[in-house]
């Protein structure tokens, strides 16, 4: 439908919409997160749901204790290698459409514990992450910002066509392989179908991880 005609009609008090807009409007305003926290970021997540920051304004205060009723997984905290299979399994048990917010430095990359032998260096090695919130821990405002970004993302999703989201595409998987807690590391150490880190030329940037030349 023509956008100008639609605006003109709405000025006259006539609401026009499409099935896609209606569908996305409903989904945008009822994102139910999984009641699930891993470390200190979860405290910020809990604070976000409480009266001061009030996530209920976005229709997302219903933290579900069961993955079968949740739309959104907020990976809030350090994912240890012992915990990673459980996180992936919980993600697999969520029904489509499902989204993941990687909250805090630990969930993104391992954060301050990146060098730890038992810390997973980013949950995006196993499950597709929609939004990353940097911070240690991120403020509740940052989580709300991520929520609003996710709402924008859901609102823009197409019902049909090539760019339609994963849950409407029969060819794309809903479950991802659960890693095994092996003798020395998780097996496999990453899911190459999901984890595609950008190639960085360390020789050109001139610094290594420790910050020295």
């Amino acid at each position, binding site marked *: 439908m023509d956008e100008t005609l639609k605006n003109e009609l709405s000025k006259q008090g006539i609401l026009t919409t499409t099935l896609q807009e209606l*569908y996305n409007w409903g989904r945008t305003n009822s994102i139910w997160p999984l009641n699930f926290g891993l470390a200190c970021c979860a405290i910020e997540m809990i604070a976000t749901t409480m009266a001061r920051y009030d996530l209920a304004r976005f229709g997302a205060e219903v933290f579900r204790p*069961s*993955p*079968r009723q949740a739309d959104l997984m907020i990976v809030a905290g350090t994912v240890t290698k012992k*915990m990673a*299979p*459980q*996180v992936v*399994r*919980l993600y*697999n*048990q969520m*029904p*489509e459409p499902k989204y993941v917010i990687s909250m805090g430095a630990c969930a993104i990359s391992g954060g301050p514990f990146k060098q730890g032998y038992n810390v997973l260096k980013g949950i995006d090695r196993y499950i597709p992450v929609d939004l990353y919130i940097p911070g240690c821990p991120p403020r509740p405002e940052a989580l709300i910002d991520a929520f609003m970004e996710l709402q924008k993302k859901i609102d823009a999703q197409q*019902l049909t066509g090539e760019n339609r989201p994963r*849950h*409407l*595409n*029969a060819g794309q*998987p*809903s*479950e991802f392989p*659960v890693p095994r807690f092996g003798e020395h590391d998780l097996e496999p150490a990453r899911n190459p179908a999901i984890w595609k880190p950008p190639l960085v030329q360390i020789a050109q940037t001139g610094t290594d991880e420790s910050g020295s030349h």
Partner: protein
Amino acid sequence: MTNNIYLPVIVLLLAAVAFALSTLLLAWLWARFFSPHKPGPSKNAIYECGLESVGDAWIQFKSGYYLYGIIFLIFDVEAIFLLPFAVAFTGFSAAESIAMLVFLLLLVEGLIWAYQKNVLVWT
């Protein structure tokens, strides 16, 4: 036109049922035409948890646990009787004291029986 004061209630009831059913039907139709069915081993698992369930739910408790629990319950109740008995002890007549003693001895006899039957041995 005598008893149609309930007519609005019936209409509302039908509307409520129709609303609930139509929502479910719409969701079903939506899933049918737009959302592809994607089952999987984790998703279809009976127990929704990060951990896989281990073992069988039909486990057996030792019968000794049952006897142990019963004996505990009896002496728990006895303690409740003993407390007022101890408080009012000085005001009792001989007959009342003997009655209480019989009660105590009966229970102690039960305990001795349980001891001889090896119920209290937890292996």
